[in-house]
């Protein structure tokens, strides 16, 4: 495995300038593109997610790392060849009907994007039908729902019911989160996973898709 420690460090620190320089260097020295991404960038973001879950870094630092990674990806993209990079998975995400809080959901989106997933963000106050339609349309692997109010938590159950009615419940994994949401609640409504924070959302997503 190639050494990308300097790149990894820069992404963790959120130092865009040095991360971009390191990526440039790796590309110029002919490193394998998949390896730059997996062993450099994504390894860094895994570390960032873990630090976030522990409380060692906070939202602004995590976002800066995510942004750093995206800048590096921009450099790498022109070098992609067909089939070079496997898409990791598609995630449809949104805040449930009746709820307008989206900060947590946005953090999850950004972290998942940073971890290499494709994100389809439906925004806030999303109807069960809208979730179902988007999951069908995009053939998403994961559906993520967020609720910050205990009064809007039942909408998560309704959305899962809507998936069942549409006959696609077994085609998509459901992950939920938000301040009042618990692991017990996730089990109760038969969601596939509960993520208490954005870092865990990445870990859970990977687990659900058998990537870790």
């Amino acid at each position: 495995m190639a050494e990308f420690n300097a790149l990894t460090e820069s992404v963790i620190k959120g130092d865009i300038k040095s991360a971009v320089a390191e990526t440039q260097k790796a590309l110029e020295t002919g490193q394998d593109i998949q390896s730059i991404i997996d062993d450099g960038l994504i390894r860094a973001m895994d570390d960032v997610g873990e630090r976030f879950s522990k409380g060692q870094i906070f939202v602004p630092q995590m976002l800066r790392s995510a942004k750093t990674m995206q800048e590096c990806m921009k450099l790498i993209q022109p070098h992609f060849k067909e089939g070079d990079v496997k898409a990791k998975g598609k995630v449809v995400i949104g805040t449930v009907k009746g709820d307008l809080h989206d900060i947590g959901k946005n953090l999850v989106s950004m972290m998942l994007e940073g971890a290499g997933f494709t994100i389809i963000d439906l925004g806030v106050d999303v109807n069960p039908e809208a979730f179902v339609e988007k999951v069908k349309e995009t053939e998403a692997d994961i559906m993520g729902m967020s609720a910050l109010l205990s009064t809007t938590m039942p909408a998560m159950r309704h959305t899962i019911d809507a998936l069942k009615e549409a006959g696609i419940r077994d085609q998509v994994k459901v992950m939920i989160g938000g301040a009042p949401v618990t692991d017990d609640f996730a089990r109760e409504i038969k969601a596939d996973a509960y993520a208490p924070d954005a870092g865990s959302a990445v870990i859970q997503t990977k687990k659900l898709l058998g990537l870790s």
Partner: protein
Amino acid sequence: MRKPKNHKPKKKKQTVRLPPSKRHKPKYVWLNVLPDDLWIRVRRGKTIWEALQKAAVHLEGDCGGLGKCGKCKVKVLSFIGPPSKEATELLTEEEIKDGLRLTCRNKIKKDLVIYLGEPQPDQEFFQILKTGYRPPLQLDPLIDKRLVTISPELQKQELSEMDRIRRAMGPEGRNLQVPLHCLRTLPQIFGKTSYHGAVVLHENSMLAWQDWESVGRRYGLVFDIGTSTVVGKLISLLDGHEVAAISHLNSQIRHGTNVISRLQFIKDNKDGLKRLHDLLLKDMRGITQRLLEVGELRPEEIFIAVAAGNTTMQHILLALDPSGIAEAPFSPIITEGIVVKAEQAGLKLHPEALLYVMPAKSGYIGGDLISVILASEAAEQDSEMILGLDLGTNGEIFLGNRSRLLTCSTAAGPALEGARISHGAIARVGAIEAVRMVDGQIQFQIIGNVKPKGICGSGLVDLVAVLLHCGIIDCEGLIHPTTNEDTAHLNGRLVENSGVYDFLIASPEESHNGRPIYLKQNDVRELQLAKGAIAAGIRSLMHEMKIEVGAIRHIYLAGALGNYINPFSAMRIGLIPTVNPDIVKSIGNAASTGASMVLLCRNSWHMAKLLADFIDHVELSHRADFNQHFIEHMDFPRDNLW
């Protein structure tokens, strides 16, 4: 905003003064005596002994206040520092530890709370703010009384009794209306008072004809209905003086601590609304009874009450279903201010007594915030930009002046009330309420002068500010050992736990229950979220108003936290923008102040109604810039102001 026309011709121009700054030392302070919850107005500098003597409160004591017998000890709940050397000799170590002090050796320099007798274990003291600064206003209360004599000539004329009253009152009586209850009692009371009595007036309606001697007995009630506490005040309509103030924890708390949980309770239970309404009314009746006892009044003597609360509480008061507020689009049943018979709401006062319920703006901008804005007089400022904050689980913010006034509500989370903090506490005995750095050592100020049990909102803000200052917390919010030599001794208080540090506030020996108290890394994160949301709310309003920090002339902090929070600490952690601290002022329990302004001045009611229309509610969840500001303001400011 234009002021509505006065009902009466203007007597003189209203004087507008600004709230006194924190440094201003008032001539009079309040002594609150528990468990009776008696409030005594005292000249600053008098001893507790002198104040209690004057109020005829009996205390043990042989020496007459000379500091010799050591018998006049009481439990002091407000922070007052250690006893003097001579007093120390008269108290046992145990007594000092329990916060006991000699009344004759302690001068009252600020508002003070004491406890007489043996504290009952279930009778805990909560620090609830009842007082506040009220701007001067022209007295024109909602209820007025007039002496009316029906002359012998009038009595002889062929007129109805009602027309006799109308004639006797002159032009003012021309359109006088009279409710049925009053009409029914009229013949009887006319006879008793020999046609010479006091007319109780509300607008152009006569609520009662009373004995002429009652003309000077004019009182009204105001209620500040908070999600966690209910405050009631008895106010003299003659001079605007607060006769008594009493608070009670909102009994609905057993069904959840926040508005959302109450809404959930109503949704989940068929009789949920009725049960919450009944609990609230029981609290309000209890408060009313105590207030009337203090004022030596009978319920029938009260004709008026004004209530302010968040939109959900106001709905529950009127037994209106607030469920619509629970989810988007957050629709309440009513927002306008309304006047109902107090009896219909369930208050037992005079049968014709009226209850004014403050106008609200939306599901989350309630009558309490309208009251706060009213008390701040922000809408009467011609050009000076006012920023106001009412901090609680929801941080409510307003910005502007007469030309434009913006408000928003941010879901700050409960960290500032001590919730979701590992050793967080609400402001009650044992809570650390302030933290200072004295000669390189951290000093804690604890409610009740006991060993600490936890930390409340104002203490948390102080502690994090102090630790930022010491380099123990960095501007990204990480707790780590400091490299600053002057404060390196504090590194000994850091405890490492799988890669993160926690700060030891009190060791088992230093704490109240023998268990250590920590500020954990995640507690700092909770605070960052709370202060980030409020700071971002402020920035979003500033952005909408197109102004910079420099344009803000006054910052008003309302509510209990606003009163106890140290402005320097609030700035150090970035909760409020960095400004000249002189412009930051606490306006106390401004929600009840606003309600009492309505009680005392009819114009204020119209102002409140206009305010609700005039203010613009900025819905933050629709704004892209709010998230950007939120993320930017989660970090602590780099600049060290201190």
